[in-house]
């Protein structure tokens, strides 16, 4: 009996220690950054119009890219979770490629595709992706869409297909089953997926800078500004950008969690 109590305590201790160690580690890193910033640098950097522009651009692009990602990922994940078809494994693996590929490599591929490959058709018809804001969105979309499919596929798989069968016999067609039953029931999972994807998109750098560049006042997102700050050895500016990114991300993610918590539904 006593042995059991100690084993339980050891288990509880282990999970708390692991979570605590992670929290302390991350906090220590952030606090180190904070202590390196001189108080007068805050006002100096934050007053710059360029900072506000980068912040707005980052928020806008990450949000649009994440929503676009979900728009494609929701039906694709539903297909992979519910249907059996030849080549399913191949499609599943293909959708994983953006996730496993290094962002710079993905950016290079996109640059080649839109710069000199079949993607030039878009450029010729006035839809530009290279070194413009739409390029940032496309780059972030390309990086996060695989992640969205992966997380949403697990969400749809966890939902019993019986709900769809029942809805079908209650008179729903495929559309109304999807919009009246499946989407509301997986709302929780979709929000979680959005948070995951948005967090990944706002911090995206490698693919974005390769396809859209980091032109100040044009395509300079916060991660790009951090890179440029480091390149110009402006440590104070760089550190403030990092903390700004962390702060904005924490505020946005906590707000989403708080606003959606009360109406969440289990995916039974």
């Amino acid at each position: 009996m006593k042995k059991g109590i100690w084993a339980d305590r050891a288990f509880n201790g282990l999970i708390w220690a692991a979570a605590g160690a992670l929290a302390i580690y991350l906090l220590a890193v952030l606090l180190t950054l904070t202590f390196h910033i001189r108080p007068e640098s805050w006002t100096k950097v934050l007053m710059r119009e360029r900072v506000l522009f980068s912040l707005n651009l980052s928020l806008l692009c990450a949000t649009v890219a994440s929503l676009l990602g979900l728009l494609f990922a929701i039906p694709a994940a539903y297909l992979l979770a519910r249907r059996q078809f030849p080549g399913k494994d191949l499609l599943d693996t293909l959708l994983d490629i953006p996730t496993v590929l290094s962002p710079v490599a993905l950016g290079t591929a996109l640059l080649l595709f839109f710069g000199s490959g079949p993607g030039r058709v878009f450029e010729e018809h006035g839809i530009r992706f290279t070194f413009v804001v739409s390029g940032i969105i496309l780059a972030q979309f390309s990086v996060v869409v695989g992640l969205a499919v992966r997380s949403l596929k697990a969400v749809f798989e966890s939902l019993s297909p019986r709900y769809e069968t029942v809805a079908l016999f209650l008179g729903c067609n495929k559309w109304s089953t999807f919009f009246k039953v499946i989407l509301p029931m997986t709302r929780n999972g979709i929000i979680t997926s959005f948070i995951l994807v948005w967090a990944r998109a706002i911090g995206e750098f490698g693919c974005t800078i390769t396809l859209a560049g980091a032109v100040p006042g044009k395509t300079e997102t916060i991660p790009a500004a951090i890179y440029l700050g480091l390149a110009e050895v402006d440590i104070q500016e760089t550190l403030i950008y990092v903390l700004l990114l962390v702060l904005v991300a924490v505020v946005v993610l906590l707000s989403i969690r708080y606003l959606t918590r009360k109406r969440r539904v289990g995916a039974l």
Partner: protein
Amino acid sequence: MIQVKNLSARFGSFEIKNLSFSLREGEHFTLLGPSGAGKSLLTETILGLRRYQSGEIRVGGEYVSGKPADRVTVSYVPQDVALFPHLGVLDNILFGARVRRIKSEVVRQRLKKISGILKIDPILKRGEIGTLSIGEMQRVALARALIIGPRVLFLDEPFSSLDYHIKRQLIEELKKLRRALSITVFHVTHDHEEAFMLADRIGVIFSGRLAQIGSPVGLQHCPTTLQVAQFLMARNIFDARITEIDPRAHRAIVNIDNLKLVSTVFDKVNSGQNVYAVIRPEEVHIIRPNRPLGPKVRENLFPADIKGRTPQPGGCLLSASLDGLNRPIEISISNCAYHDLKLDVVDSVQVCLKSDSLWLIPKNRKKTENYLY
């Protein structure tokens, strides 16, 4: 209402083979079988949710072939009820009516009738499905399925997770609903009591094959195979041999071990044939000594010693040994009869295996599986 003709279907290594039956309008048909017999697969095939290889299925006159059965005709309550957790009780119930745009006056009348029978008025305004008990969830699922006014209701193990009292209440309510709404019910279960209390006819299924279809009484008294007899808990099943048959009097003399008995209930058996002689425990009579005997109980009357007593709800299961019989016979008796016969103090009795309760099953019929009970 439902016609299934020569249906064969394969699902991985499991097979439904050459299955035929039909349901009349307004009938309650129960498909009864052990777990893994293919009940749910057959239901899903009839509903058009699974493809089949050959045969034909018609529901409400429409052919079903790998597409969902006519949704106007059919409603379905699965085993796990599948209430929508993002909707409240009333929104769950009205879901189908809203999707089908049924007139609100019709919906109001149906809801009044259904909620009255199912006694769900007090929970209609509940916002969270998670706060309902399992019995309440079953009632809400039934109401949701019935509010759309289906002609056939498919129930897949509807009461399997309910406790005894709630199950009994729901069985009574389902009977009332069926009468009030004049619907045909196709009901799948492994629960004997549920099947026998609700069904007009029962189909017994083993390993994807229908072993027998009949009325509850007919199935209990006249199982056509050993497997059905064992599954329906006939308990007293003996190897026997027919020594003599009088076709005109419809009487057969059978030898069971060293006993000679008379049977008047059999079909397609011959003299000299090996058979199983089956008598249900509740059909065995215990006769008080010195009691004047009617002609029916003078036959097949034997002295017996009570060897064991197992209490049962409302009665007792006795195990008695008969001279000349190598195996004890089991007798089901009510508490009232048990005390009247003073069986708590008396061990020696007379038992009668009435000739019209001793059913003979020919041994040449295929034996596929034995069930332990």
